[in-house]
């Protein structure tokens, strides 16, 4: 009965002509959360790789934090999909009986590769020496957790540590294309749906990738600015400026690619252009024009230009970086929203629009989505407790 009532309410909101199975959209807020979270993973990893592969020394203080952030978000990444699909206990079957022709089914392998062969391995080799040392100092449960996590390894000779360092570098080199694959794949899922003109574009994986890099760098910057003082350290302004300038470049590239995609669509003016422009100017006006473009991209770009042009004081710079990072997070979340929800708001007849009404309490509702967005931070706080990203002397030295 509630479903009928819901349906009736929605049908009042429909503009123009729409097929009956398009009135209620099927991919809800959970599917918005999923690309947002995987984007943060890929972006955070790319930031980490700048230190190891491209040797950007200033970024060292964010290296371990970026890795842990990527891991915390990666652990939650499949959850929205599992909640959306239902029957999570069956998900392992995806690995046991692979369907090689389904892009969606291959996600499991992309995810597994990234988790097991890239992120966990890199973190393990990066922390192995420290885990052995810390397990010697700690007592009780923590001691044993660290022992198990280090796989009871004991060798901290110079030769072994050198091997660790070398392996981390190799894994990072493999990790960069893997991170591109992970998030490019998410874009591919949407970009390859040829029946939907809002999604079907070869630019999609590229747009996803660069927006992922933007959001990943911004989240690590944000976390660094919050966690460092909380743990008694001082924010390294050299590092922060460097992160911000990488963020600045990433936003410029991301913005250019999105504008290119936009112009390309306008110039191509396929038969769908009328309904898409109606979509952008009505249903998505707030989330696309205001939140994504104006507040989430142009305003932070403007602020960063101001920071670069005028030599502002440290305190003010920190504040502005913080504002930028928050705005960018909001902007990228809107990007995901506009892709996922926007693509389902117009009829395939190109003659009408529907509306998305978000549930509050249900399994696909706002509260579940909020919980999923908070969970990675809970995991991150546990990870930071167990595997501190900064050593005591680093905190004191700062």
């Amino acid at each position, binding site marked *: 009965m509630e479903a009928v009532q819901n349906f009736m309410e929605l049908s009042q909101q429909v503009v123009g002509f729409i097929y009956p199975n398009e009135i209620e959209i099927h991919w809800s807020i959970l599917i918005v959360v999923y690309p947002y979270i995987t984007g943060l993973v890929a972006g955070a990893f790319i930031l980490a790789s700048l230190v190891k592969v491209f040797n950007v020394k200033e970024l060292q203080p964010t290296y371990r934090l970026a890795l842990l952030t990527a891991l915390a978000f990666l652990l939650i990444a499949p959850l929205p999909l599992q909640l959306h699909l239902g029957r999570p206990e069956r998900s*392992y*079957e995806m*690995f*046991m*009986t692979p369907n090689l022709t389904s892009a969606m089914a291959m996600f499991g392998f992309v995810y597994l590769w990234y988790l*097991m062969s890239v992120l966990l*391995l890199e973190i*393990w*080799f990066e922390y*192995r020496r420290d885990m052995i040392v810390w397990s010697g100092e700690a007592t009780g449960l923590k001691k044993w957790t660290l022992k198990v996590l280090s*796989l*009871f*390894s*004991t*060798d901290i000779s110079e*030769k*072994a540590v050198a*091997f*660790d360092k070398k*392996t981390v570098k190799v894994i990072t080199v493999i990790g960069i294309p893997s991170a591109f694959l992970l998030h490019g794949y998410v874009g591919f899922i949407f970009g390859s749906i040829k029946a939907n003109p809002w999604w079907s574009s070869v630019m999609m994986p590229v747009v996803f990738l660069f927006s992922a890099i933007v959001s990943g760098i911004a989240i690590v910057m944000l976390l660094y600015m919050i966690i460092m003082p909380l743990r008694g350290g001082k924010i390294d302004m050299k590092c922060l400026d460097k992160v911000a300038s990488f963020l600045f470049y990433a936003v410029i590239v991301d913005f250019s690619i999105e504008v290119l995609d936009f112009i390309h669509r306008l110039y191509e003016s396929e038969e769908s252009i009328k309904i898409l422009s109606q979509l952008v100017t009505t249903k998505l006006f707030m989330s696309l024009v205001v939140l994504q473009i104006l507040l989430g991209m142009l305003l932070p770009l403007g602020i960063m230009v101001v920071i670069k042009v005028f030599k502002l004081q440290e305190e003010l710079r920190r504040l502005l970086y913080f504002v930028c990072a928050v705005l960018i997070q909001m902007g990228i979340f809107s990007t995901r929203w506009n892709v996922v929800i926007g693509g389902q708001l117009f009829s395939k007849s190109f003659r009408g629009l529907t509306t998305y009404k978000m549930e509050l309490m249900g399994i696909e509702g706002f509260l579940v989505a909020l919980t999923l967005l908070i969970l990675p931070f809970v995991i991150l706080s546990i990870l930071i407790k167990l595997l501190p990203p900064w050593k005591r002397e680093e905190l004191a030295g700062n």
Partner: protein
Amino acid sequence: MKGFLNKLPEQAIRVIVVFLVLAAGVFVIRQFIIPPEMKEPTLQKLSSMEREADKEVKYAGAQACGPCHEKQHDIKKTGYHRDLSCESCHGAAQKHADNPTDVKPTSPQKRDYCSYCHTYNSSRPTGFPQINPDTHNPRKPCITCHDPHNPKPPQTPRSCTACHAQIERTKAASYHALLGCTVCHSTPEKHKLSPRTVTPTKPDTREFCGKCHDKASPGKGVPAVDMNAHGEKYVCWQCHYPHMLGGI
């Protein structure tokens, strides 16, 4: 081999062991726990075919009713519902076919059943009989006037508007409002009884429209063109829709 293992640092061996254990776990689950139908597409197909074939047969099929219900079958054969199977309205009847005396199929008596197909919906093909259930004899069961085995309008329509109301409404607001339908369409009397087999004519020459719209025609206040120069080889209604407001 032994030399190679000795060269590897101990931590690498530990990681390799973890991966080997995981790979062995996958192998064991795939080999011994997952049933073969889930791995082999042919087996999977076979088992789903068996599963489907084991399901109870509910429908007797379109041929089953004729031998016993000859009268209805013969009426339906020539009527508009000839392409509908009996079970479309009477429901699954395999049980009735197996045991005709004890099990009787249902027959829809209420209005809502017919309206599944006959309620007005713009996506239905032109000419398909459609009504608005709220205004079309409200609450009266359809079968009081229409025989479902040979559904026809209960009386011959008197004017074109009975069936072509939509066109009439459009035309009423156009410049052609005062022209009767028969000025342009000649309609055989049989069209009223058998609307889809005997159809009215449509003007198919330029000269027909030219009777009023040619410069040389005597009509006053009617838009007139030089029929030799205007529109070349096209028939007029390829550009001008005659029922529409303004006619263009």
